[in-house]
């Protein structure tokens, strides 16, 4: 990654080779739209090429950093769609809906399986069922407050309080485990 800052195309190509399937998987899962996910992936890598110098090598693994960029851009796009109902309708009608495999594990299973360290898994596991599922659904499928409320058949206030409590506990646990290096 440090090499990308020097304009080393081979390092960049290698980075793409190693991370693109993982990142595309994240984008497809959140956006449920292969074409939109391609756009995000393209933008993320173009941005990485230009800004690799600002990559904070000491703070996280490159793939973690890239995953954060991709997730963030996906969420921007999802929320923009909410603001622009015309776009939302057009997107629904253009037949590009990406079909997810039906054998997928549930979001909570994924949240646990995806935690890279045992300490992170423990932190996820100690959450109550409601908050855990709300965080998992938001994290893997990009659901908003309102969508979570519909999906989980809970009042909006409950969803908000689950998220707030869950995230607070998660933070306390992760930071105690020394996950985030400062």
């Amino acid at each position, binding site marked *: 990654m440090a090499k990308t800052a020097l304009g080393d195309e081979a390092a*960049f190509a290698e980075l793409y*080779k190693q991370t693109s399937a*993982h990142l595309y*998987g994240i984008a497809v899962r*959140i956006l449920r739209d292969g074409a939109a996910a391609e756009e995000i992936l393209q933008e993320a890598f173009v941005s990485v090429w230009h800004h690799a110098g600002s990559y904070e090598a000491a703070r996280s693994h490159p793939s973690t*950093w890239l995953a954060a960029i991709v997730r963030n851009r996906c969420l921007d796009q999802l929320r923009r769609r909410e*603001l622009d109902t015309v776009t939302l309708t057009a997107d629904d009608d253009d037949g590009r809906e990406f079909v997810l495999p039906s054998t997928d594990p549930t979001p909570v299973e994924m949240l646990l399986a995806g935690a890279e360290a045992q300490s992170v898994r423990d932190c996820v596991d100690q959450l109550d069922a409601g908050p855990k599922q709300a965080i998992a659904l938001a994290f893997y499928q990009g659901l908003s*407050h309102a969508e979570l409320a519909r999906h989980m058949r809970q009042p909006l206030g409950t969803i908000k309080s689950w998220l*707030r409590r869950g995230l607070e506990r998660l933070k306390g646990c*992760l930071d105690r485990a020394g996950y985030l290096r400062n």
Partner: protein
Amino acid sequence: MNLSRPDRLQRLDALAAEYALGTLPARTRLRLARVAQVDAAVAAAIRDWELRLASMADAAAPVTPPPRVWLAIAARLGLGLASAAPSVHANVPWWSRLAFWRSFALTSFALAMAFGVTLFGPGMRAPEQPIVAVLAGPDARPALIATMLRGERTVTVKVVGAATVPAGKSLELWLLPKDLPPKSLGVISDSGLVHVALPAPTEVALANVPALAVTLERAGGSPTGAPQGPVLYTGKVERFD
């Protein structure tokens, strides 16, 4: 969003958490992003949460993106052009860069394995053994397979996974002789089977040529005789003798 209250830190952290998780309503999300641009503490809180949450992202099932994604990235960044690598390689053409050779050597090995071309081992040689180059992009997925027969003056290129070429552009096939500039074999289509003439019989034309490459050029190919566009695919010339 009043962030000047005493519990500012806690409220800020809760907002940053939901920003990173993605659950904030659209307008709040936009407002917070704007605040983060001018307030370093807000930006740092968001980044910390993004990294905390990203530690759990690995379980999304990997999906290999279509080859056109890399093609678009390479085209947008002008990868393969000497001018795209300002500081280090300013005066070195892309084909003589170590990095380029290293990357193609890696993919060609993987491809040889994937295609089982090494199955044609010593003692198993068929009477008419073609010379083969499997060309691939950085994602290591085969895009084109070039085959040549000794004594003939044709390269047969089968397109197996090349990305669709944008309007106004062409794919151009190159011989990459050792220590010499690339030599164009002409423009090829992005689908089906293409026959390209060689300037000399195969064994002569390919002597001293360890690899082939395909670049993305303006329609009709590079007007200068030297590649100008990004390198999309490369492949090592495999001789089975």
